[in-house]
């Protein structure tokens, strides 16, 4: 039985990753999850300098989901390279670094700094809804998305994944823009912008007023967008959005995703990534699937 997938020259032992921002750099979750089992670890977004993030409250629970407005708090690339990469190098898994910035220059600074680091893939976050500049500013306009993709690709030494936002009218236009800019892969979906109001305090549940909605409630939107994007481009698609178990992950794979990522489910089940991996293997045995590639995009 083969569960491995090759993403632009990078061989993942299985197609299961976790979503940036839900897993830190794996350190905290390594108490619950053997990181050697994962196809790869996608780190929390890292910028050229430390970012303090948004005021609290940053978190609110919603029906079958949650809103977050962390605001990409991160220690900056220097601490990341000296602490997080050496930590991840101890494990037999691929390292996928999520990169954020407020301008093309900031993205490029991080990408340049990572050129000589033992990092397997770069995921460029142009879709965080919780920071005003950068992030989403590049992720909602096809021309900007294509331009930032090209700028990053000119500097990147590793294959580049562009992480797309669902907060657009036509996801295929964004997927095509990333492909036109030279993206090696795309990943989607990031969170959907939402709002919750605390009726007792008569104010917003989040200090940032709006936040990114994630969790099982967004899964049908995510599956639809992954299906559409996979049919619109000829580069691999990494699917995510509300995956909690192997059945959820298989929806994305059947819709056309070459790999999947588990996000918010890590909070409700710290072992969620392993449950997904084991469940996919069990499904393949049960259904007589010899190679995971038989499943990728099998639902037309």
């Amino acid at each position, binding site marked *: 039985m083969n569960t491995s997938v090759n993403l632009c020259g990078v061989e993942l032992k299985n197609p299961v990753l976790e979503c940036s*921002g*839900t*897993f*830190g750099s794996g*350190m*905290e*979750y390594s*108490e*619950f999850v053997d990181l050697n089992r994962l196809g790869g670890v996608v780190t*929390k977004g890292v910028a050229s300098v*430390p*970012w*303090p*993030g948004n005021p*609290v*409250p*940053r*978190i*609110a*629970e919603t*029906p*079958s*989901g*949650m809103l*977050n407005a*962390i605001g990409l*708090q*991160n*220690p*900056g690339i220097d*601490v990341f390279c000296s602490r997080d990469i050496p930590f991840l190098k101890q494990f037999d898994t691929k390292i996928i670094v999520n990169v954020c910035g407020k301008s093309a220059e900031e993205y490029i600074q991080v990408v340049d700094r990572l050129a000589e680091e033992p990092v397997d893939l770069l995921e460029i976050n142009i879709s965080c809804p919780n920071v005003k500049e950068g992030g989403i500013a590049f992720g909602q306009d096809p021309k900007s998305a294509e331009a930032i993709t090209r700028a990053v690709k000119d500097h990147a030494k590793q294959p580049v994944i562009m992480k797309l936002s669902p907060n657009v009218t036509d996801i295929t236009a964004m997927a095509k823009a990333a492909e036109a800019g030279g993206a090696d892969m795309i990943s989607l979906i990031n969170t959907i912008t939402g709002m919750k109001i605390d009726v007792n305090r008569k104010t917003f549940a989040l200090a940032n007023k709006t936040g990114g909605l994630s*969790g*099982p409630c967004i899964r049908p939107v995510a599956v639809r967008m992954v299906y559409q994007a996979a049919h619109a481009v000829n580069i691999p698609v990494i699917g995510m959005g509300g995956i*909690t178990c192997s059945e959820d992950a298989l929806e994305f794979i059947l819709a056309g995703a070459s790999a999947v990522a588990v996000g*918010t*489910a*890590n*909070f*409700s089940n*710290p*072992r969620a990534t392993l449950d997904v991996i084991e469940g996919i293997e069990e499904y393949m045995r049960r259904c007589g699937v010899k190679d995971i590639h038989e499943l990728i995009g099998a639902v037309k």
Partner: protein
Amino acid sequence: MAKYMEKGVVLSQKKLCGGIYDLVLQTEHIAAESRPGQFVSLYSSDEAHLLPRPISLCGIDREKCTIRLVYRVVGYGTKEFSGLEPGDRVKLVGPLGNGFTLSDKKALVVGGGIGIPPMLETAKALAFSGMKREDIQIVLGYRDICFLKEEFEQYGTVTVATEDGSTGTKGNVLDAIGAYKLQGDVIYSCGPAPMLRALKAYAKEQGMECYLSLEERMACGIGACLGCVCKSKDVDHHSYVNNKRVCADGPVFHAEEVEL
């Protein structure tokens, strides 16, 4: 310190007073590794409610491997937990957070509202460390009905404040401390933010050492998601942006370390 994900078995549950419940869980490993001031994350059995509910440890029995949680019903999760019966199982992760670092200095143990329960195990640990009873001054602030008060009396001298004046000093814990001129070298406390803010100011004025246990909305509960930060005086060792993680760097902080 190791963290465990387990299915705790309910040994008992009773209602203490309006909305406050007292739950005892049999754990496999969690109790043996726990210390006062730490917390556990309890998970709803309804998958539509994703996030763990952080609840402080009111009691730890390392020999029997049980933990006691005294909590207030504030929403869906806690309402569900209040319906747990002996033999039921509940998913939990713990022990989480740092807990109190205790010393043998003359102590003021201060709890307000639903911040009172974690101070019981703290007072017990101080008493069991061999401190004299008169060196453990316990101050409890309630809205109206007092809970756990008799249990605190085993470990030290208890002074009570109630908002409605029905028991003890009318007002808050600071009013009670002032009324009885309570003395100590170190404050250990947990309670609502305004109370902690006032205690911090009081401790500074009196030249006392002061530890505060904070609360914040959490998602992961283990330090990964950065959802529950507080502003800190010193740079934090996670992101280096003066944001300490309440779940992992706390919930207990030196008062001078954090901005409230």
